C-alpha cells in the first residue's frame, strides 16, 4: 500500500478552488501516478484553470492536495517564448540542454536560429511544450496549450507530446476543450461539471464523453 502511495505524484482530496470564500464546485478527488496523465474537460468558466492554479499553490482552495515533486506550468498564452531571443536561446535560458534527437523527432531542428515572431502558433506551442518536457520538473500542468492551433496539427502535437512525456516519465495534467486531444494526451479523462465530476478511461467513445459534460 505504502509503495502504491509513493508512486502517486498528484493526489487531490475534495479539492475545489475558492471564489469569494465559496468552493466553486463539489470537491474533486483524484490521483495521478508518476508518469501518468490526466486530461480535465469541462465547459468554459467552470474553473479548470483555477483548479490548475490551486494545484500550483497560487489560488486558495478547500480540501487538500499532495504534490510529490516540482511543478512546471504551460500556459494558454501563445507567446510564452521571449520574443527578443532566438528559439535556441529561449531553450537555453530555460536551463535545459537541447537534445538534438528530440528536436529532430518534433521537426524543430531547423527552427533553432529563428526568432519567435517568425514561427507559426503551432511551432511556438511545440517549442513551449518541448521546453516544459526537457526541464527537470517532473509534474507538468498544461492549461489548454493547443487551443489556438489548427485541428490537424493539434492532434499531431498531442500525440508526439504524449510519446515524449511517457518516454521521459513526466506526470501530466492537461486542460482542454477538445475530446480528441484529451484522448490522445491522457490515460484518464476527468469530466468536470458544477455539481459532479467523473473520471473515465481514454478508451471511452467521443459521444459518450460529450454526453457526460453538462
Amino acid at each position, binding site marked *: 500500500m505504502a509503495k502504491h502511495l509513493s508512486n502517486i505524484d498528484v493526489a487531490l482530496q475534495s479539492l475545489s478552488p475558492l471564489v469569494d470564500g465559496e468552493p466553486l464546485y463539489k470537491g474533486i478527488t483524484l490521483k495521478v501516478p508518476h508518469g501518468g496523465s490526466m486530461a480535465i474537460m469541462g465547459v468554459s468558466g467552470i474553473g479548470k484553470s483555477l483548479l490548475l492554479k490551486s494545484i500550483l499553490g497560487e489560488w486558495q482552495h478547500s480540501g487538500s492536495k499532495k504534490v510529490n515533486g516540482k511543478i512546471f506550468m504551460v500556459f494558454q498564452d501563445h507567446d510564452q517564448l*521571449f520574443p527578443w531571443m532566438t528559439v535556441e536561446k529561449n531553450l537555453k535560458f530555460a536551463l535545459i540542454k537541447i537534445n538534438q534527437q528530440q528536436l529532430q523527432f518534433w521537426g524543430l531542428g531547423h527552427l533553432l536560429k529563428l526568432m519567435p515572431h517568425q514561427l507559426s502558433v503551432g511551432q511556438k506551442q511545440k517549442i513551449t511544450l518541448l521546453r516544459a518536457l526537457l526541464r527537470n520538473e517532473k509534474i507538468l500542468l498544461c492549461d489548454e496549450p493547443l487551443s489556438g492551433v489548427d485541428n490537424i496539427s493539434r492532434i499531431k502535437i498531442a500525440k508526439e507530446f504524449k510519446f515524449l512525456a511517457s518516454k521521459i516519465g513526466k506526470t501530466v495534467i492537461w486542460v482542454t476543450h477538445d475530446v480528441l486531444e484529451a484522448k490522445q494526451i491522457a490515460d484518464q479523462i476527468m469530466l468536470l461539471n458544477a455539481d459532479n465530476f467523473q473520471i473515465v478511461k481514454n478508451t471511452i467513445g467521443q459521444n459518450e464523453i460529450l454526453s457526460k459534460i453538462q
Partner: protein
Amino acid sequence: MKYYLKFSSLFHITLLFVFWQVCSLWVNDEFLLPSPGSAIFALKEKINEGHFWHALISSFKNLLLAFLLGMTILICICLLSTNKHLKEFFKTIISIFVSLPSFAILPVLLIIFGISYKTMLALLIYSMLWINLSYAIAALEQVSNRWNPHVKNLKISKLVEFFYVVFPAMMPALIICAKNSWTLCWRTLLAVEVIFGNLASGFGIGVMMTMDRVNFKVADIWGMIILIAFISYVISWAFDKLLTKIKWHNDGR
C-alpha cells in the same frame, strides 16, 4: 500613395516653406518676417563663420552630458523600481515633480549653484527626467504583468530577470524615453542659452541667437531656427529608425 508616404515629410516641409514665403510676402517687411530664402542664405553665411561650429559643438557637448546622465538615472530608478515598495515611493515622487516645470525650480538651483554650468546641467536633467520616468515605470509595470507568470515558472533570479527579461522587454519604451529626453533636453538647453547667454552654458547656439537679436540680425535668427528644427527632425528620425530595428516589437506586439 506609396511614394507619398515615402516622401510625405519632404512634401510637408515644402508646404511649410511655401506658407512661410506667402506670409513673408504678405507682411512685406524683412525685419519682421524675413523670407525663407533670406533665412537660408543667412544660415549659409553663418555656417561659413568660425564661431558657428564652436557654438554647435559646445551646445551638443552640454546636451550629450545631460542626456547621458539623465538616462543613466532613469535606468537606475527603473532597476530599483522592480522592488514593489521602492516603485510606490518613486511613483509618489514622480507625481509630485512631474507637474512642476523645470524653470519653477530654477530659483532653488540658482541659490544652490549660482549662475553656473551645474545649474544648467541640473535643469536639463530635471526637465527630461520626471515625465520619462513616469512613462518608463508604466512600461515596467506592463512588462512585469506580461512576463511575471513565465519568469516565476522558470524560477530565475531577480537580477537575471532584470537583465534578460525586463530590460529587453522594456527596450522599445526606453528608446521612446530616450527620444523624448533628447527633445526635452534640447528645448531646455536652447532656452537656458537664450536666457543666460554664455554665463552658464558656454558659447552655444542659443547664445549666438541672443547676439543676433542684440545686433538686429533677424534673418540670422530665423536661419538658426531652421537649423534647430532640422537637427530635431534628424535626431527624431534616427530614434524612429532605431525603434524599427527591434523587429520583434514591430511584428504584432
